[in-house]
């Protein structure tokens, strides 16, 4: 049936930060930008050193046993009753939507449901829980936004990115053709069906270039890696950046981290 209405919590004193393995290993500056944005909002950020991966790659490939074994230790990492904030719609969607399915009928069901209910996508949390106000410090720039399919459809945050970017006076958000269409990443899809994936990312990249964007800011590093990697390989004039890196850079005057 219809998705349940999201009930945002009051702004908490502390949050847990779940970085995701892709951010941890490849785009840590995006993670750090997210942490700094939260801290600037007066929130203490707890970073459990035991965190690894949300388990999604195995889960979406059908290897539920392996996914479960990866997730089980993670279920213990967030004992306090604080929100868990994730800088990715995709991993956030895994935790919020799929953990309860994965652990239904198992001894971990309650823990999985508890964790799921506390999981928030980072930009959604910044806008709708922290009520962040951004002061743009940067030069005029044209960017396009790519909201990942999981951010859009699983986490329901399609409006959030554009609203955050809308707070930045010098940033022009350009309109692309078919903004809601998938970029073709799809995790292991990109290597199982590389030709279809290429057709999709080619169209996405061309739509972004045609819109006149210099940079595509994305909710998820997976999509960003896909689009920016395609643009680089094919010498298309488009950079990718995680949205929180972009927001931090624009409002702090330093950074530039996270560029692909």
């Amino acid at each position: 049936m219809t998705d349940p209405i999201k009930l945002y919590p009051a702004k908490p004193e502390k949050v847990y930060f779940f970085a995701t393995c892709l951010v941890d290993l490849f785009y840590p500056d995006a993670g750090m930008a997210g942490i700094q944005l939260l801290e600037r909002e007066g929130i203490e950020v707890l970073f459990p050193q035991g965190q690894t991966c949300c388990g999604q790659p195995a889960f979406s490939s059908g290897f539920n046993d392996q996914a479960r074994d990866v997730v089980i230790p993670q279920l213990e990492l967030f004992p306090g009753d604080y929100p868990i904030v994730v800088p990715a719609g995709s991993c956030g969607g895994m935790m919020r939507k799929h953990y309860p399915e994965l652990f239904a009928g198992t001894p971990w069901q309650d823990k999985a449901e508890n964790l799921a209910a506390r999981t928030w996508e980072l930009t959604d949390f910044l806008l709708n829980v922290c009520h962040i106000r951004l002061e743009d410090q940067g030069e005029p720039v044209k960017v396009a936004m790519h909201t990942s399919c999981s951010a859009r459809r699983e986490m329901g945050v399609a409006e959030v990115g554009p609203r955050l970017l809308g707070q930045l006076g010098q940033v022009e958000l350009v309109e692309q053709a078919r903004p809601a269409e998938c970029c073709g990443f799809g995790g292991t899809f990109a290597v199982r069906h590389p030709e279809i994936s290429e057709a999709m990312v080619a169209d996405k990249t061309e739509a972004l270039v045609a819109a006149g964007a210099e940079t595509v800011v994305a909710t998820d590093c997976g999509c960003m890696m896909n689009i920016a990697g395609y643009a680089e390989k094919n010498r298309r004039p488009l950079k990718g950046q995680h949205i929180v890196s972009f927001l931090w850079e624009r409002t702090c005057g330093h950074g530039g981290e996270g560029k692909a």
Partner: protein
Amino acid sequence: MSLAPHSQEVRHFHPRVRSALDNPQIRSNFRNAMDGLMSKRQNAFNGWDLESLRDLGAAVRLRALSRLPELLEQLEDNCSRQGIRVHWAETGEQACEIIRDICKARDARTVIKGKSMVSEEMELNHFLEAEGIEALESDLGEYIVQLAKETPSHIIMPAIHKNTAEISELMHDRTGTERSHDVAYLTAAARQQLREKFMKADVGISGVNFAVAQTGTLCLVENEGNGRLTTTVPPCHIAVTGIEKVVEHLEDVTPLLALLTRSATGQHVTTYVNMISGPRKADEFDGPEEVHLVLVDSGRSSIYQDQELMDTLRCIRCGACMNHCPVYTRVGGHAYGTTYPGPIGKILMPHLMGLENTQDLPSASTLCGACGEVCPVRIPIPKLLQRLRKESVDGDSLRPSVVRGHGVKRNWKERLAWNGFRWLFRNPRRYRLFGSLLTRFRWFTPSQVGPWTRYRTSPKPAAKTLHQMMNERTRGGAR
């Protein structure tokens, strides 16, 4: 017409995909058609509380499915009372035989057909032709596809893969129609050719959109009038449908119809909505003397056994999932090699053909969720795709696989890869060590990583992991 049986086609998914992607005509025909259909759907639901209507549609279908065996019996009783003869077929082949026997009993030589996907599923036309009975498709798209000796590439718009020029050429070749790019001219020519066939046909065969149990009514939705001609002009009408199409009350049809036509073609209502409740009565001037209903199982009752997979049977065959699917839009319907293409095909065909014959389909999705978002009866298509992926590799020891052909994708290489993934990520210390090694030797990571870098550059590991950065911060006495 001679087409390879489905099972042989599907194994060649990848080459079909490649050839579709390399065909600019296919690419643009589908892209343009799907863009048009998406915007028509959106406009058609303007001003509607679509989410509530979808809730209602889903509820109606769920209610019907929850009482399916009982409703089917009720349907049979009520149809029989009104003079519709009801037949049950466990397989597509049995259904073909039943239809053949009805035709033979009437000495029928020619059959005219309205659009029916279930008849495509059971390859009825081939069967009848082998028995010496001519079967002619009367839906314009189906007619074109039949002329071309092809199969439908879309469940609502069977010939959507062809543009006007291709259709003109085809009609010229097969029927001698003068070449023209004027759609109205071509349509009129086809109409003329078909009209004569309607008058001569011994039997009309149609599908069913909704079969109403309580009233024994067969609802048939169409735009060309061919459905009405098929079901009223020939002396005998055979309606054929999957057993899942039953609904409880006549009132249930209202929300489903509102959803179906808008989701499918963006129409508020189709040109024709036929409600058939029996053969011609003594005091009536027209209609067939005989009406038959063939209820086809063909794997559906095995889907019905599983609480989760059962949602597949909610489908009302609107095609919105394929219209919105970024994969279908790129590769078109024929690449799937199955009767039902697109997202619904990916979740339905493995049950009808076995996973062994559809093994590439569940993975051919980014799980973007566009299909689930538009499905008028809220079938959780991405979730079912995920389920079939699990079944393909027998990937869940807590929940045994049940789908025919499960485990077909099991192989030691992939198992080894995911066991490696588990080994690395289930142990935080091991993972952190891996992270620090990866960052230390970041310049040694390969620049070519399989199919990924065929089309993209590969990302470089960072100089420091976030774990390391946060660890240093804590130890450095920062906040």
